[in-house]
C-alpha cells in the first residue's frame, strides 16, 4: 500500500483550488437555478450569481498569486499537472474570459429567453477544463481536459436551440471536434506506443528513467532520442493537427467561420478567445517541452501552416459580408500570426520567455478586443436568427458615440492600429519573429496585416461614416440599436475593457519586465 500512499500524497488537490472552486461553483449554479423560486421575474438570479462568483474568484485568484503564492514550478498528481507563474497567468486569462462570457451571456440569454443555469454551468465547467488543460503535463489529463472542454462547448454552441443556425453550428462543431480529437488521440497513442516499449518499435529508449510514459518529460526525452522515428513523427504531427483544429490553423481552420457564425454571441467570443488561447498555451507547452527534440522537423511545417493560415484567413475574410464569419476568419489570421511567434519561441529554445510573453500579451490584447467587439455586438437587437452584418453598425457613432468609440477601440486593436494595444502585441510578435529570422513568415504577416486593414476598415467605415446612399427600392433596415436598457454591467464591462486596451497601448507596465 506504499504505492497507494505515494500516489495519494502526490494528489495535491489544494493546488487546484481555482479549478475546483469553479467546478463547484458550476454545480452550485445549477442548484441555484433549480431552487430559485420565482422563475419568471428574477430569471437571471443565477446569472448574477455566476458573474459575481467568477468575479470574486478572479479577484481572489489575482490577489493570491500576486501577493501570497507566487511560487514557481510545482508539479502535482504524480507529475500530471504542472503549476507555475505562467499557469497562474493562464488561469487569470481564462477566468477573465469566462467572466466576460458570463456578462455577455446574461444579456444574450435575457434577449433570447434561454436558460441561465445551464449556460453558466457549462461555461464554468469549460473554463475549469481549460485551466486544467493548459496546466497538464500528461497526455491523459490533456485528453480528458480537452474533451471536457469540448463536451461543454458542443451544447454551448448549440445553446440557442430555437435557432437552426446554432444547432447546425453545434453539429458541425461536434463532428469536426470529434474528428480532430480522434486525430489527436491517434497521435497520443503513437507517442505512447513507442514510448512504452521503444525497442519494440525500432526506437531508442531514452534511458532507464522511471517515468510515466504519457508524461511530457518522458515524451520529450523520447523524441530527443528518436527524431527520425516515423511513428513518433506521425504521432507528433497528429497531435499538432488536433491542436491546429483548436486554434483554427490551416488546413484545420475550415470549420471556424461556420461555427462562429452559428453560435450565440457569447459563445462565439468564448470560442474565439478561450478555446483558441488554450490551443496556444498548449502548443507552447508542447513545443517548448516534449516536442523540443523535434524542433528542426517541426519548424518548416509550422512555417507553412502559419503562412497558409495568415493568407487564407485574411483573404477569405476580405470578401465576407457577415460579421461573425469575418471575425472568425480574422481570428484564423490572428492564429497565423501567433503561430509565427510560436515558431519564434521554438527558435529561442532555452530562452523562450520573450516569445512566450509576446504570445501571452497578444492573447490578452485579443481577449480585450474580442470581448469589446462581441460585447457591443450582443447589444444589437436583431430580427430572429438573422445575421450580423456591417450595415447593422451604420451610423453607430452618431447614435451611440460611447459604444461606437469602444467598438472602434476593439476593432482597431484587432487590426493592430497604433496606439491601441493590439499594435504593441503585433509589434512584439514582429520583434520576436525578426529576432529569430523568420523573414518569410514575417513577410506573410505584413501582407496579412495590410489585407486585414481592408475588412477591419470596412467595419470602422460602417461605424463612423454615415450610411451609404441606398437605391430607392432598397429597404432601409430597421434600427437594431434599440432596447439598450438594463445592461449596465455589460456597458461597464465594455468600457473597462476598452479603457484597459487603450492603456496597454501606451503603457505596458505589468508586462514590461516579462518581455
Amino acid at each position, binding site marked *: 500500500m506504499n*504505492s*497507494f500512499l*505515494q*500516489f*495519494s500524497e502526490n*494528489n495535491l488537490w489544494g493546488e*487546484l483550488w481555482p479549478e475546483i472552486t469553479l*467546478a463547484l461553483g*458550476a*454545480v452550485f449554479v*445549477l442548484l441555484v437555478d433549480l431552487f430559485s423560486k420565482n*422563475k*419568471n421575474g428574477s430569471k437571471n438570479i443565477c446569472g448574477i450569481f455566476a458573474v459575481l462568483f467568477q468575479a470574486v474568484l478572479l479577484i481572489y485568484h489575482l490577489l493570491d498569486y500576486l501577493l501570497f503564492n507566487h511560487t514557481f514550478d510545482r508539479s502535482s*498528481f*504524480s507529475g*500530471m*499537472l504542472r503549476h507555475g507563474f505562467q499557469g497562474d497567468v493562464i488561469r487569470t486569462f481564462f477566468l477573465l474570459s469566462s467572466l466576460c462570457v458570463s456578462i455577455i451571456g446574461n444579456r444574450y440569454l435575457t434577449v433570447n*429567453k434561454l*436558460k441561465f443555469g*445551464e449556460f453558466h*454551468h*457549462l461555461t464554468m*465547467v*469549460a473554463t*475549469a*477544463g481549460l485551466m*486544467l488543460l493548459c496546466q497538464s503535463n500528461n497526455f*491523459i*489529463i490533456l485528453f*480528458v*481536459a480537452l*474533451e*471536457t472542454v469540448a*463536451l*461543454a462547448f*458542443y*451544447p*454551448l454552441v*448549440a*445553446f440557442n*436551440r*430555437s435557432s437552426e443556425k446554432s444547432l447546425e453550428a*453545434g453539429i458541425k462543431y461536434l463532428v469536426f471536434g470529434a474528428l480532430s480529437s480522434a486525430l489527436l488521440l491517434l497521435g497520443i497513442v503513437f507517442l505512447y506506443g513507442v514510448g512504452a516499449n521503444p525497442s*519494440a*518499435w*525500432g*526506437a531508442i529508449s531514452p534511458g532507464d528513467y*522511471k*517515468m*510515466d*510514459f504519457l508524461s511530457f518529460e518522458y515524451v520529450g526525452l523520447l523524441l530527443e532520442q528518436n527524431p527520425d*522515428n*516515423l*511513428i513518433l513523427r*506521425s504521432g507528433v504531427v497528429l497531435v499538432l493537427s488536433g491542436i491546429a483544429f483548436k486554434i483554427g490553423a490551416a488546413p484545420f481552420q475550415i470549420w471556424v467561420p461556420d461555427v462562429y457564425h452559428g453560435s450565440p454571441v457569447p459563445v462565439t467570443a468564448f470560442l474565439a478567445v478561450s478555446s483558441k488561447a488554450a490551443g496556444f498555451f498548449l502548443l507552447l507547452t508542447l513545443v517548448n517541452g516534449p516536442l523540443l527534440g523535434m524542433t528542426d522537423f517541426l519548424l518548416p511545417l509550422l512555417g507553412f501552416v502559419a503562412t497558409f493560415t495568415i493568407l487564407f484567413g485574411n483573404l477569405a475574410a476580405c470578401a465576407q459580408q457577415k460579421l461573425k464569419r469575418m471575425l472568425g476568419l480574422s481570428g484564423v489570421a490572428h492564429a497565423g500570426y501567433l503561430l509565427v511567434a510560436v515558431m519564434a519561441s521554438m527558435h529561442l529554445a532555452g530562452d523562450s520567455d520573450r516569445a512566450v510573453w509576446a504570445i501571452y500579451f497578444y492573447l490578452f490584447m485579443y481577449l480585450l478586443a474580442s470581448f469589446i467587439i462581441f460585447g457591443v455586438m450582443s447589444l444589437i437587437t436583431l430580427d430572429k436568427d438573422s445575421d450580423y452584418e456591417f450595415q447593422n453598425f451604420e451610423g453607430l457613432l452618431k447614435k451611440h458615440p460611447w459604444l461606437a468609440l469602444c467598438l472602434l477601440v476593439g476593432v482597431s486593436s484587432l487590426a493592430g492600429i497604433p496606439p491601441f494595444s493590439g499594435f504593441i502585441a503585433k509589434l512584439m510578435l514582429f520583434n520576436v519573429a525578426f529576432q529569430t529570422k523568420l523573414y518569410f513568415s514575417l513577410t506573410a504577416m505584413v501582407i496579412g496585416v495590410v489585407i486585414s486593414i481592408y475588412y477591419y476598415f470596412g467595419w470602422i467605415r460602417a461605424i463612423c461614416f454615415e450610411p451609404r446612399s441606398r437605391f430607392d427600392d432598397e429597404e432601409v433596415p430597421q434600427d437594431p440599436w434599440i432596447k439598450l436598457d438594463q445592461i449596465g454591467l455589460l456597458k461597464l464591462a465594455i468600457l473597462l475593457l476598452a479603457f484597459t486596451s487603450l492603456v496597454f497601448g501606451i503603457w505596458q507596465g505589468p508586462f514590461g519586465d516579462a518581455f
Partner: protein
Amino acid sequence: MNTVDILFYLFSTLALGGGFLMVCSKHPVSAAMFMIISLVGVAALFVLLEAFFLAVLQILVYAGAVMVLFLFIIMLLDVGPDGGKASRMKLISGFAGGFAVALLVVVFLIMIQDSGLLKTDSQWLPINDSAALTDGTNLHFSTSVKNFGFGLMTKYMLPLQISGFLLLAAMVGVIVLSKKEQGTKN
C-alpha cells in the same frame, strides 16, 4: 499458424468487415447492426490481447449502450436510407474519399513498415499477474480488474474526477438540447 493467429484473423475480419459494411450499407439500421458486429470483433481482439476488462467494457458500453442509443434514435427519427439518387457528385466524392483514405492507409503502411515490425516476429511478453501493481510511476499490465481500480483511484484520480464533470457537462448539455421549452410559446 496457431489458434490465436486464426482467431486474430477471424476477429479482425469481423471488425474490419463489420466496419466496412457499416460504412457502405444503405440503411441506417443495418449500418448499426454491422457496427455492432465490428464492435464485437474489436472486443474479441481485446480478449486476444488479454485485456478482458476492456473487452467487457467494450461490449457493455458500446454494443450495449451506445449502439442501442443509436438504434433508438434511428427508430425515433425514422431515418430512411440515403437518398436513392446516386448523383455524380456523390460518386465523385465517394471515389475521392476512397482515394484519400487509400492514401492514408498507404501512409500508415509506410509508417509501420519503417518501424520494421511487419516482417519480423516480435515477442509477446508474458503477463505477470502477480507482480506489483506499480513500479512507482507506471502501472503494470494485468488481466485483473484490481489493477484498473488501483490506477483509477490513485494515479488517475484527477482524470477520473474530470471525467465525472465531463459526464455532468454532457448531461447538462443533453438536457439543454432536449428539455422541453416551457417559457416560450410557439
